[in-house]
């Protein structure tokens, strides 16, 4: 019995370790935290940002595994929604950039100087797609 418990604990710890380090590695490769510190000029606070990510991930784990309930005002959802959206948006932008699609496209149509217009297309497309999905798409049966 003790052996079983110990091995289960070990397996849980091991898989958590793998997933957690994978998550951090993913964030590091995409360079979102450096980008944010660069924009806000808060390089010195980077350790606190690391802890923010760690604490955020752990509370996400708790929320998804333990189903807690904190009945507070629904308007708390608005800042949560915006910050979640900004985070996913930055992930998406970083992924787009890693794939190096835009420079090539912009050069092909000789739009090197006005690449902002192409970014606008992507940004508006994302917003449109997301809103369309939540307002309409998910309710089609």
């Amino acid at each position, binding site marked *: 019995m003790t052996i079983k418990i110990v091995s289960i604990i070990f397996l849980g710890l091991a898989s958590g370790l793998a997933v957690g380090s994978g998550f951090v590695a993913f964030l590091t490769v995409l*360079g*979102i935290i450096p*980008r*944010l510190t*660069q*924009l806000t000029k808060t390089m010195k606070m980077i350790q606190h940002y690391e802890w923010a990510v760690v604490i955020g991930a752990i509370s996400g784990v708790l*929320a*998804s595994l333990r189903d807690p*309930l*904190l*009945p*507070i*005002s*629904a*308007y*708390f*959802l*608005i*800042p*949560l*929604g*915006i910050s*979640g*959206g*900004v985070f*996913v*948006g*930055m992930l*998406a*932008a*970083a992924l787009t*950039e890693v794939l*190096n699609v*835009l*420079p090539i496209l912009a*050069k092909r*149509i*000789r*739009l*090197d100087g006005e*690449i902002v217009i*192409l*970014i*606008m*297309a*992507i*940004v*508006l*497309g*994302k*917003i*449109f*797609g*997301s*809103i*369309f*999905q*939540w*307002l309409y798409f*998910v309710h089609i049966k």
Partner: protein
Amino acid sequence: MWEVNVLEKTIYIRMRNRVQTKPEERVLLKDVAQIIAPDAVLSSLKEMLVHLVTDMDRNIIVIDVMHIIQLITTKFGDMEVQTIGPAQTIIEVTNKKKGISIPFFLLIWFLLFFGSAMAIMNFHDDVSMKSVQEKIYTIITGKNEAKPLLFQIPYSIGLGLGMILFFNHFFKKRLNDEPSPLEVEMFNYQMDLDNYVIIHENKESMKRVNDD
């Protein structure tokens, strides 16, 4: 005395990275390089013909610094040439100033718009975003809601904000003066192209010793 003499006989050349010309144009030394030289030769050096763009040329020409040194030494034999910086200049012949073709542009714009809209929907489906959002709604309010729009609408707007933040463009207006990652990426891509061209279009830098 001797040192002064050396100084007076030295020509310093720094090749430019990229130059654009029109077809059928005379490319002069001052177009492809920065020059420091004694006043006596400076003006004739500046006007020295380096390359005449003809129809035979393709739209990229690479001028090697060796070619320049050869030209200078045949004209001013006793001068010493010092080169600084890049070893070649890429001349880009811009044929009949092509503008952006509007239908092409609109096509790409719509492609990106619709493509990213669909990509984000696929992503949401893939990671079960909907059930996560419903769960967050339940955690915060204690109620079940099939349409947690109070979370979803700010989320959607935040999505766009995050992308703008990452690319550092508030549409036309910048948040700060640093180049955006995309501009750096464009620059890197251009540098890679230039490097390729330097090696492949320059007859001197690729030579087979044993051509059999």
